[in-house]
Every structure is written in C-alpha cells, then in structure tokens.
C-alpha cells in the first residue's frame, strides 16, 4: 500500500483521538502503534474502523488486513490450519506493515491478531486502499 496523503493521515489521527477521547494536546503520531502505544483494545479498534468507514464512506470488512497481507499467496502458503501465519505469510505482513518496528512481530502470529501490529499510518493506508472498492 502506498503512503497515505497528509489529509487522510490527519483525519485518522483525529479519529484515533475521538476513539480514545484524547484531548488535542495528546500527541498521536503516524508511527504510533495503536495497541502498544495507545492501549487499544479490540473494541477500540472496531470503534476506530467504524469511524474511518463513516469519515471516508468506505467499508472495511473483517479480514481485510489479512486479505491484503495474503495478496496473491495461496491460502496454504499464507497461514497454517491453526490460523498461524507461515514464515512467508509473516514476511508479507511485515512488508505491508513496514512502519511497524520488526521487533514488534512475534515468531507466531495468528491471523486474528494482525490488527495488533498496525500503526496509525497503516490505518490511513488501509482507508485509502479501500476507496473505490
């Protein structure tokens, strides 16, 4: 996914603030990790994604991040039967979330846990990738 334009990024920063009821002085940076730096829960993420959908008039169905990470990789090469990403799948995820520090990714990543590794900018990129879909 290409880098988001500054307008989209700024909008997502504001939506992160709204989701967590943060005041305007609380810093929210493009490279902040939602779960690690801002204490997001899975419900906070859902709340943020709903706000992003409403703000940009898009839909982000569950599994979008996994689908983008998988790309053209056959399902069996992306994840095992237990839902844990294969080394190739992990590599593709790390490529997609290139602004997340590599040390953040554990060796075993379950498909359902992918949003845990998103930065603010990754959500902005996700929003832009869904435009026109």
């Amino acid at each position, binding site marked *: 996914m290409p880098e988001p334009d500054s307008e989209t990024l700024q909008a997502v920063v504001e939506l992160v603030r709204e989701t967590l009821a943060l005041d305007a002085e609380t810093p929210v940076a493009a490279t902040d990790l939602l779960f690690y730096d801002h204490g997001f829960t899975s*419900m906070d993420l*859902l709340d943020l994604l709903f706000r992003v959908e409403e703000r940009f008039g898009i839909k982000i169905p569950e*599994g979008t991040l996994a689908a983008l990470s998988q790309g053209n990789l056959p399902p069996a090469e992306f994840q095992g039967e237990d839902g844990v990403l294969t080394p190739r799948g992990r590599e593709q995820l790390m490529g997609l979330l290139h602004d997340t520090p590599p040390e953040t990714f554990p060796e075993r990543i379950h498909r359902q846990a992918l949003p845990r590794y998103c930065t603010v900018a990754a959500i902005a990129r996700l929003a832009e990738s869904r435009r026109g879909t």
Partner: protein
Amino acid sequence: MFELIEAMRIEGVCAEARARVPADLPQLQDHFPGALLLPGTLLIELMAQTAGPLLEETGDAPRWAVLGLVRHASFLAPTPLPAAIELSAEVVRREPSSGVARTEATVEGEVRARAELVFSLQPRDPAWGAAIAARDARLASWLAAWEGE
C-alpha cells in the same frame, strides 16, 4: 437480575420484544423518589437483550453475543415507571466475530431511545454451559410467549 422482557419475535434480520418495568423494583426506588424514571442505561440493557439474541440467531454458527460498544445513542424522552416498552432491533452488519444492530425503544408509540449496538460474537465456550442453557431457556420462553399472544 434484570429480566423484564416478556415476549419476543425474531423474523429474518429483525426482532421485536415487549418488556414491562414495574414501579416497585427495589433498585430503582431512588431514581427518583416520587418520580420514578427508568435509567437510560437500563433502557440500553433492554435494547441489548433484544439485539443480542437476534444476532446470535441469525449467524451461521452458534455464538454468544457480548455487548461491546454503544454508538449514536439518543435518549429522546424520559420513561416514567411503570412502563410497557416496545423494543425493536435490526441487524445492519454481521461479521464473523462481531455484529451491529440498530435498536429502538418505544413507549405508547413514542420513541424514547435509539442506539446502534455493537456486539462481540464469541464462540459458545462449554465453560459457559449453565449460562448458555439459561439463555436458551429464556429465549425459548420469550418466543413462545409472543406466539401465544
């Protein structure tokens, strides 16, 4: 603890329910003395008790709906007690692990509250066996009561 729904109907992606809240519930006597009002949070609870089973019943696999977010909630008018409340819910979004329902609570034809409720849809853990059995029995009695009306 707060089982006030008396009857429910589920059809497709919509549910309707009827609840009756008496004026003598001990926990509501100080809200407010001499002018009893149903707290908005409990109105939301009744709306969730309508939307939760709807989402559980409309999926492909058995799920346990746990309220996670209350969005766009408006309390349009107070609800004095006692009250006969008509509840409605419509599924507006269904994902494998979450669901969203638009809900309303109406009294005497007037909408008193509306909200969009977001539920986490969790697999039915066998550890919750007793709770699930109670839920199934409660829903069956609500559905039967609607049929019997």
